[in-house]
């Protein structure tokens, strides 16, 4: 979609009748794409749901071993980045080029912060041998609220597998998002966006917010299982 705007002048592409048609098509297309993304993550959520019901205690033990404070901080970081995205679009709508560029840079900084914190989290898990695979170990970890009960390492491994795949795919989406925003920044720098024409910003923003929404679910589901003991 973004590729459509290569012509310097935000001109109407030949096959659209009006600019509005072009803009509506682009945003509608993005929403449809997000629908496929929902189903993409949906398969993982379905697997998660089933195993969480089966192995609740083991999932709780595994979840408790993750640093929820880092996860919480990351949630806040993403929420802030979503705010900067809407502010960037607002800046484009009101012809504030400096603000637009500032907000885009801020968004990307938040995104990088998120990935950095994520990296710390992954490093912790790596040191604790909680990465599924040959070196995985989760022996003698008590199930929260059940003294004397130890989590089954195999079941904990399923949790960590889902944790790494879900957060990993999410992080991959963040990286792609950063790529899109780099391009948006470049285009904003060139002064391509005007109050009349800023479709790529809106499209990129939709994508960024979607990634945020996925995280809003991942945070309680992966980090906050049975924390109350």
């Amino acid at each position, binding site marked *: 979609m973004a590729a459509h705007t290569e012509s310097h002048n935000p001109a109407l592409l030949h096959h659209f009748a009006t600019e509005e048609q072009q803009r509506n098509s682009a945003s509608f297309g993005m929403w449809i794409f997000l629908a496929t993304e929902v189903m993409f993550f949906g398969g993982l959520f379905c697997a998660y749901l089933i195993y969480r019901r089966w192995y609740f205690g083991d999932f709780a033990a595994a979840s408790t071993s993750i640093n929820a404070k880092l996860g919480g901080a990351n949630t806040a970081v993403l929420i802030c980045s979503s705010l900067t995205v809407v502010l960037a679009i607002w800046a484009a709508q009101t012809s504030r080029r400096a603000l637009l560029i500032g907000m885009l840079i801020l968004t990307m900084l938040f995104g990088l912060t998120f990935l950095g914190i994520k990296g710390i989290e992954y490093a912790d898990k790596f040191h604790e041998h909680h990465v599924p695979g040959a070196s995985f170990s989760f022996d003698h970890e008590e199930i929260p609220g059940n003294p004397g*009960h*130890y989590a089954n390492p195999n079941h904990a491994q399923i949790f960590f597998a889902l944790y790494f795949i879900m957060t990993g795919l999410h992080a991959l989406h963040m990286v792609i998002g950063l790529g899109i925003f780099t391009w948006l920044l470049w285009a904003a720098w060139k002064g391509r966006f005007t109050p009349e024409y800023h479709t790529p910003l809106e499209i990129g923003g939709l994508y960024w917010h979607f990634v945020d929404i996925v995280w809003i679910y991942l945070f309680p589901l992966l980090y906050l299982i049975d924390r109350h003991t």
Partner: protein
Amino acid sequence: MFDNFPLWPDRASSMAGKVDALYIFLIIVSGMMTLLIFTAVVYFAARYRYRKGVPAEQIEGSTPLELTWTVIPMGVFMVIFIWSAVVYFKMRTPPRDATEVYVVAKQWMWKLEHAEGQREINELHVPVDRDVKLIMTSQDVIHSFYVPAFRMKQDVLPGRYTVAWFRATKPGTYHLFCAEYCGTQHSGMIGSIVVMEPAQFEAWMSGGSGGPLSATGEKIFAELGCATCHRADTQGRGPNLQGVFGKPVQLEDGRMITADENYVRESILDPGSKIVKGFKPVMPTFQGLVSEEQVNALVAYVKSVSQSGAATGKSAAATEPEGVSGKAQGSKVQ
């Protein structure tokens, strides 16, 4: 030529007739529908073929007609659904007093063990007119136990039991197929079911066996030291297993569960997953320590100490493990 050109499979189980009846009903229904549509298409195509100067007559459609051919098929479908569901429920509900055969599937072989202890490979001997329940599991991938003459099929999964049953009605030898693709020699994972007259079957059964499966299980039970905790009185660290099988069990998290084959199996291989109320999760897992056949024997044993009908007879056996348990404990202390 027609000796070797059958158009209908053997009908050799109590379910076969029921499935065939439904199948014939469906053939008639769909045959009628096909005939209706084909006749209409052929007739219209011939009757209304293009003729110069005769234009087509435009018809917009007809809601009553649409409703008719929505509602009538729906009605027919519901009849099929209910009938087929009844048949399916019969297939999936093994009769209570069925003879039990434990099946272990592996690439690419069927291993079968009668409750009485006879072991067979790729062949199963059963008496005619007796309910046989198959308790099946796989050592590796998914297989499927399929006997066309019995109209019976059930996937055999690794990691749990699936259950099927049949009641053979006609002596003879029938194909046993693996119906779920399981790797290179999938088409070689075949065998036969030999249905015998009761007298013949008894004769066959009397030939060599290492004693009933439950006795084998009892021996393993003792060897593994299970009786240390699962004592016949109530003072053990684990639940008393007498009379447990087939009964509801209250778990520590409040759930009620029926102690079926899968539950006993899970309790051996993953004891932490379902703790009986009032007990501590102290039992170690036996995953990897016992083979599928040994798990089957243990399940058969747990079952045998729970059969109420033979309660008195079994209680004698049940006292025995106590002696054995002392031994096992002793050996453990050493």
